[in-house]
């Protein structure tokens, strides 16, 4: 469904992505692992239309060419990004944040349905609808952010380090919620530092280093891979 072919991007002279190939199939949950500065956030920004790709790159979603579209058009094409740092509106209430998520034309007719879906996914938000989002805990704010993205009726959800800064307890809850996103027929491409937890819920994964894909495979294969265990799972090298 999402197809990236030979995607490159640069900040001025600095080449942040070089020739990335990546695919997310319908209904799939795919994780990107990689060190800080590898280019994972840049890749999500390219898909979302916030960072331009270089010539020769290809990004398409269900056959629609996403390259060159403004960010709000990408949302209309069914791709919603929850950026690192969440991108919610702290001075607005949870309800306002969620309803704002349904701003795209594709989402308006389904607003009530989407809201009900978000409430089943994050029951905690239901009693907090009137609360000002900025006064919530980090984990709750992340739920608002994901809920806001789901309100746009996306077919693909992009998440940039959703568990960043959350307590282990909250992170656990978040991963459980992510698992359930499958049930509502939304595909997910997400970036995570917590390789063990994310490979446990993902179908497939990509390893990103210095702006290129250095490995890919099913989650099970990556979990079992020696180099993945050393680099991302903190398993000591066997003598």
């Amino acid at each position, binding site marked *: 469904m999402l197809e990236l072919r030979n995607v490159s991007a640069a900040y001025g002279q600095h080449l942040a992505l070089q020739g990335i190939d990546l695919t997310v199939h319908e209904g799939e949950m795919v994780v990107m692992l990689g060190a800080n500065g590898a280019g994972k956030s840049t890749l999500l920004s390219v898909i*979302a*239309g*916030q960072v331009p790709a270089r010539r020769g790159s290809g990004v398409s979603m269900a056959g629609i060419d996403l390259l060159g579209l*403004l*960010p*709000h058009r990408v*949302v*209309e094409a069914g791709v*919603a*990004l*929850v*950026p690192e740092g969440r*991108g*919610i*509106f*702290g*001075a*607005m209430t949870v309800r*306002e944040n969620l*309803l*704002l*998520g349904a*701003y*795209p034309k594709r*989402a308006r007719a389904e607003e009530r349905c989407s809201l009900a879906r978000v409430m089943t996914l994050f029951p905690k938000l239901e009693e907090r609808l009137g609360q000002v989002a900025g006064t919530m805990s980090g984990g709750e704010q992340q739920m608002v952010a994901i809920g*806001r*993205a789901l309100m*746009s009726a996306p077919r693909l959800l992009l998440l940039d380090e959703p568990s960043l800064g959350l307590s282990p307890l909250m992170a656990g809850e978040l991963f459980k919620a992510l698992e359930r996103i499958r049930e509502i027929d939304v595909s997910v491409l997400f970036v995570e530092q917590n390789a063990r937890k994310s490979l446990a819920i993902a179908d497939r994964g990509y390893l990103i280093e210095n702006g290129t894909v250095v490995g890919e495979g099913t989650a099970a294969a990556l979990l079992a891979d020696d180099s993945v265990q050393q680099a991302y799972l903190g398993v000591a090298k066997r003598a």
Partner: protein
Amino acid sequence: MAFLDALLNGLTLGGMYALVAMGLTLQYGVARIMNLSYGEFLIAAAFAAYWLFQVQAINPLLALLLVVPVAFAANWLIYQIMLHPLVKRSRNRGELEVNSILATFGLLFVIQGLVLLLFGSNYFSYTYISNVFIVAGSPLAADRLLAVAVAVVMGSGLYLLLMRTRPGTALRAVSVDPRAAQLAGIDVRAASAMAFALGGGLVAASGVLVSMFTTFNASMGVVFTMKALIVVIMGGAGHLLGALTAGLILGLVESFVAVYVAPGLTLAATFALFLIVLLVRPTGMMGRAGA
């Protein structure tokens, strides 16, 4: 009844300042354009109302229905044609501020020049309603009261529009965080153009209302720009209730200083107030937040 005089005068003056500043806070807070030609639109609208009243015998309330849509459309076009290229070119907010100050400084002279050409540099005024009410012994001009009543209706309408409707919420979202707003599917360019045009419509409405009870000339625009700027900065950019509060405070301070200190010191008092706010709360009384 000097006290009551000053209070009534201050409240009506402050109400007008608040309305004038609400438009600027939309242009600056949402569209991120620091518009130095803002007051020229007010004066142009005041002259339009004058001309419609004296020459065409159209009363100022009907004039609103003509002048406001024209100003809205003109400001929308100005944003799309002249200001959006600056937005695209500027790499950050600071750069856009400098660019927009320079561009709208030029626009100021264009509009002022046109008004001067059409009307010359004399002072103008007209009398729409000459009744005077006596409120607890203090005189209150009916035209002034009417202007403030219309201002209150428009200000509340704008407030409800921003707080209760989906497009209004989108404007607030752009004001707080344009990047996050894009990700929520909001067309930031369209929202900015809308906010800039709304601000232009609002300042034109203010111009028509002000023309009902004051004397004006072609070069007075800058005074309104300055006062609106002071109110916006005091209230916090993009903050409607902040603009309302700061506008009322400014009106009251000016009015009381004129009555109890010296009429010549009102402008000095305005700036003193401005300095105090900047020193105590540099982000404005209500901070920088969405509406």
